[in-house]
């Protein structure tokens, strides 16, 4: 008898839900390819990071309780974002340090929550993808994924199996792009200088496509790339891995059909 497929709850993330459903569909395809069934709880909103990083602890806890209740029944919870994944995995337990019952639930959820690409490689043992992308890409390591969730080799390993794709490493790939959630609104001057430095590094690689695992960082870098008139496309890594690299890139107009 075939083993029952694990049930994965997709934590879409508020940015993907609002701005770029393509990433959500790419994530669904990849998780299904990894032998799982995917469900999307319709009552999800956000992981609570905007409140958390603004010091609004009570708001954060209220939102976290909703997420925990909504997702704790799944075998795994997967997010196409190191930032939101890191919030649930690294910060929810700490948030409820003084509430034993919720702390236990947060710990349990944290243990089965994963960033998308690390889930595919580390948990499901995915070795390759059946996708093609003709181009030279460079990859930016978004901070939370890199440092909180140790996402580094996994996307590179899978990108290495995409036909037609050449990966050129980005100098200073581990340096923040200057997005930082509310940071880019509160300190736009610093944020702008940081993303300008990042864009210079990206352009220096000669790549035609920038990939990363977090939409927030991607919107920041894509916005600066297009403002500087640079022809580099920006995409979420999942789009390329799922063979959806033919859709309009982030910030590109939708093609007339």
């Amino acid at each position, binding site marked *: 008898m075939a083993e029952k497929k694990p049930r994965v709850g*997709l934590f*879409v993330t*508020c940015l993907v*839900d*609002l*701005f770029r*459903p*393509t*990433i*959500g*569909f790419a994530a669904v395809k990849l998780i299904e390819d990894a032998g799982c069934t995917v*469900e*999307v*709880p*319709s*009552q*999800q*909103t*956000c992981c609570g990071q*905007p409140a*958390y*990083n*603004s*010091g*609004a*602890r009570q*708001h954060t806890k*209220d*939102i976290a309780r909703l997420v925990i209740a909504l997702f704790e029944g799944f075998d795994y919870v997967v997010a196409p974002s190191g930032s939101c994944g890191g919030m649930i995995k690294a910060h929810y337990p700490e948030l409820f340090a003084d509430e034993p019952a919720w702390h236990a639930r947060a710990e349990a959820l944290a243990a089965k929550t994963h960033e998308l690409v690390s889930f595919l490689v580390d948990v499901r043992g995915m070795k390759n993808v059946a996708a093609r992308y003709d181009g030279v890409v460079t990859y930016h390591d978004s*901070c939370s994924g890199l*440092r909180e969730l140790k996402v580094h080799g996994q996307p590179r390993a899978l990108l290495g199996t995409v036909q037609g794709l050449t990966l050129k490493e980005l100098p200073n790939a581990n*340096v*923040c792009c*200057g*997005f*930082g*959630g509310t*940071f880019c*609104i509160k*300190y*736009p*001057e*610093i944020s*702008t200088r*940081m*993303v*300008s*430095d990042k864009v210079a590094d990206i352009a220096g690689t000669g790549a035609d496509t920038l990939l990363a695992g977090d939409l927030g960082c991607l*919107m*920041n870098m*894509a*916005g*600066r790339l*297009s*403002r500087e008139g640079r022809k580099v496309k920006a995409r979420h890594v999942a789009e390329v891995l799922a063979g959806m690299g033919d859709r309009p890139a*982030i*910030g*590109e*107009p*939708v093609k007339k059909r």
Partner: protein
Amino acid sequence: MQPTSHAFKQNVHRALGDADLQKSLAFFKAGFAVKRDEAAARLPEFEALRDTGIAIKKHVLAHLDFYLERFATNVEKAGGQVHWCSTPDDGRKAVLEILRTYGATTATKSKSMVAEEMGINEFLEENGIEPVETDLGEYIVQLAHEKPSHILAPAIHKTKDQVADLFLARHKTKRLTEATDMVAEARQFLRPRYLAAGAGITGANFLIAETGSIILVTNEGNAELTQILPKVHIVLATVEKVIPTLDDASTFLRLLARSATGQEFGTYTTLATGPRRAGDPDGPEAFHVILLDNGRTKILNSEFREILRCIKCGACMNACPVYGTVGGHAYGWVYPGPIGAALAPNLIGLEEARHLPNASTFCGRCESVCPMRIPLPKLMRQWREQEHVKKLSASRYRWGLGLWAFAAKRPTLYAMGARAGSRILRCFGASRGRFASLPLAGGWTATRDFPAPEGTTFRTAWARRGRSG
């Protein structure tokens, strides 16, 4: 030092427009942080060393009173004196009294951030005593009438050209172009000052409880001349610098040099224990330790205790992309960068320093390189929580956040908002795929395009496929 942290945004604006500073920072970013990573990678037991160091610090902080008393007893046994000072003012007065006793009119100084915290230079000048900075970076900063912009490399914000101009104005020789020549010239000018100084003032990297010794680490040898040549050696140190034994010091010294500059070991590592003994060929007649609290015992009993593990290596500022963009002066007080952002509100108040813990993307690079694994983003977040509770942030921002949180707790309302938002933005942005300007998002669109949404929310599209969870 009068803090300007409240004017952080103005400081930032100035820093970003300062071409010399930006040139220096570009050089800086490719330096220490890279060397630190290489040095850490070269030492197989580096992570284990960090764990050992942290365990020692945790132990000391749990028994700080015991180790401080032990240190003081052993300093006195070695013939030195300890001055317990609660505030910078107490510290300044104690220093002045010692200098007056010995009739000193000049005092050589080796680099000390505690001295900056105490504002010792201005105080000495007011009292007719000339402080002479002997660390090359501090010397440059003193000539420029500025403050250190980095706890390890005080003049890291200066270009070689700027230093050449400062030296020309002071030394009145010919204008130099090579760094090695500048160093040689500074040495030449400082040498007679060492010999003439009535007192030597140093900081301390570590205080050793078991022997009453202090340890100083430099790359220039200036601290050695400062403490050995004059009649009196005055040590300025805050209470958390104490560690139990010399054995423990070996752990920290290995961590310190690698974390700070990527060196295996500081070029000069000197222990000083009390004044000159009978039969010693050199050394000061008197040895005084100013043991300053300045809020540390309050921090010890707060949710910010982990700050006190800091060994002042500067790795967090070397790694910080915000520090690397704006430099140290923008932070507006003695300690810049992530450790400054966590520490400063404790010492100068949250109202003055509230920008500092906010001006972080929480990229986490500081915590990842901190040899003591101080959870700097967590500590900065704690300050943001206090700011939120005390309603110190802009009311516009708090209202916006409250409104968003209200919706985020109501999934149906939130989904409706997201659907409407994506549709409206799509409607106006579809043709170009992005916005060059957008109401309420001026901070973003002034310098970046804002990508338009694809047009429908993921959840709507998913539901249409009839596969709703």
